[in-house]
């Protein structure tokens, strides 16, 4: 990469700071595994209510970035800010309770539990998560009422994703696509502000893909949810995301709307394996 290119890269990074009301801000994020630097000073932000795409060739550090944001890995350096608060290195459960949740690249359903149980697990702060309240006769009334609410919401959510006919099935018996729907249903039940989707469309047939994207747009429109989407399918990213971040070798190579990205030579180079 030549000198002017590097300068231009700086410029793009600066413009990214101009995003209106960023919900999630990543600043100089760094993660090393032994001697390998997986994420090397990535800086970007995600605007509230947006559907932002995160792309990059294999090994660009997308999944590691996800893991660092959601607390699965502790970053070696840098800062993650969510909703104005520093959340760097916080535990996954704390983040989920603050409204930042994720799905996994390979759907991780709780296979020996029913679909309904999977979904009912998710809501935060359930009264019945206290042993004493669940057992003691006098206090159990609250648990039953809360539980009935959770059940009703769970059925609604399953209906929204059209997997309600599988409610009593063990999650392990679901097809790959149905598992992706279940993951979405489950994170939605946590009542999040922002959902990080790690390749939600990998291995999903076109009809289901259409359905999932429709749901994502509907949730943005009607509940104002923010999405950060990692995906390999360029068409999906270009057609659905208004803001796209391209990662390469652990840092942000370019960002902007679909047009900016497709016309960026460095992006093409990175994807075509040009001499970097």
């Amino acid at each position, binding site marked *: 990469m030549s000198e002017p290119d590097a300068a231009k890269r700086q410029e793009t990074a600066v413009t990214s700071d101009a995003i209106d009301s960023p919900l999630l801000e990543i600043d100089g994020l760094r993660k090393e595994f032994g001697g390998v630097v997986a994420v090397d000073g990535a800086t970007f932000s995600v605007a509230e209510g947006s559907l932002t795409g995160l792309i990059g060739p294999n090994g660009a550090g997308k999944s590691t970035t996800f893991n660092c944001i959601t607390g699965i890995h502790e970053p070696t350096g840098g800062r993650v800010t969510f909703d104005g608060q520093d959340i760097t290195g916080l*535990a996954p*459960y704390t983040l*989920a309770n603050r409204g930042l949740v*994720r799905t996994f690249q390979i759907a991780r359903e709780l296979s020996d539990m029913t679909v309904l149980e999977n979904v009912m697990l998710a809501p935060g702060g359930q009264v019945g*998560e206290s042993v004493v309240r669940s057992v003691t006769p006098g206090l159990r009334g609250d648990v039953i009422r809360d539980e009935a609410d959770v*059940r*009703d919401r769970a059925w609604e959510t399953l*209906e929204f994703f059209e997997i*309600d006919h599988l409610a009593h099935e063990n999650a392990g018996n679901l097809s790959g696509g149905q598992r992706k729907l279940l993951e979405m249903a489950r994170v939605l039940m946590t009542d999040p502000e922002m959902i990080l989707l790690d390749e939600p469309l990998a291995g999903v047939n076109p009809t289901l893909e259409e359905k999932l994207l429709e749901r994502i747009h509907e949730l943005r429109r009607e509940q104002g949810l923010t999405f950060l989407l990692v995906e390999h399918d360029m068409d999906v990213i270009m057609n659905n995301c208004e803001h796209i971040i391209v990662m390469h070798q652990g840092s942000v190579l370019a960002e902007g709307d679909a047009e900016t990205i497709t016309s960026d030579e460095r992006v093409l180079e990175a994807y075509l394996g040009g001499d970097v």
Partner: protein
Amino acid sequence: MSAVDSVRDRLDALPDVGLVVGFIASIWAVMLVLAIAVGGANWANLAVGFIGSVTVLIGGYAILALALNLQWGYTGLFNIGIAGFMAVGAYTTAVLTAPTDPAAGAVPGLGLPLWVGLIGGMAMAAIIGGLAALPALRLKADYLAIVTVAFSEIIRLVVNWDGLAEFSLFGAPVGTGGATGISFKSANDVAAGLVNGVGQPLVTAADGIGVSGPNLANLTYGVILLLVVAASYWVLTRITNSPFGRVLKAIREDETVTQSLGKDTRRFKIKTFMIGCALMGLAGVLFRGQAGYISPQQFRPTITFYVFAALIIGGSGSNTGSIIGAATFSGLLFYLPARLGENISLGGTRAPGNIIDAVGGLASLDPLPLLAYIISNVSTLRFVLIGVVLIYIIQNQPEGLLGHRNEPATSVSLDRPQSRSGGEADE
């Protein structure tokens, strides 16, 4: 809880309770038949003796299997230190309740009532369980297993240690008794007192048909243990069929996912571990310490593996299965073969001294030496039987007798709410 809910809960519970009661009743029936077959005129006393002993075994193992089911079956916490947590409970109760002025040579205690000792024993087992779990729960499942098994051996060696045999606790002389053990208030005596006091007419009536007082007291104790099992079952079922139980199942399935859904899994794991250990401590007193005497010998790791065997047979993940498994293991695989071996003889055939001679008989097409050998060595050979049953179950029904059942973790009915049409909500 509304009346409707409680009625429905009771109806929901009925089939399982029926299953357990029926199963234990059939084991009683088998014991009765055996007693009639071998007892002659003494059959009634023998029957009460058999049934009493088998009931105590079933009760003890059922409490332990239920506790392990909460930890391992539900939450996936691989606790192979059961014996150690039983010892903590039993020894705490012993120190609290042993008389302050014991017989010559015995160890004194604090002389508190038995119920205080029981609560203290459970609390201490829970605390020690929590302490053991704290560092281990940060680790993966296999490490917890190593930590717990080491912990249970450390506990056994500590109570075996001379240095603690007798010491002073805030000025009061107490101790573990070291290798000789310790005598304390016996739970059996409570049952015996009950039988001989309130139950005096019963004792007289039983005496009329030749049933001895101690046998009747032992049976009463077994029934008391079954009541403790029923209470534990009730509590554990409420724990597991709740949002709390749902988180436990989720931890067993995938802890990272559970954390990503906002659950502080470590807190859930420690609570669960403590509740299970408290129950194990209770079983340590009521089962191992029923006669009012314990020694380190009674808390060897073998009992841990018996409890695992019972739970695997019954089906881990099912509370009802835990009790059925405990009854199958202790009644049918552990107790019955021993009684059969004692009471059956093959007429004139003398049992060969070793297995070679026994099998040798087969060469001349005479199965009797082998049979006689099996019968006379049945107390040892039943462990082979238990092994065979375990291998069969793991190969052919890895989920145990009842583990395949779907017992959703929730406090309410999971049917679709009636008010909604469903399916086409957003089409």
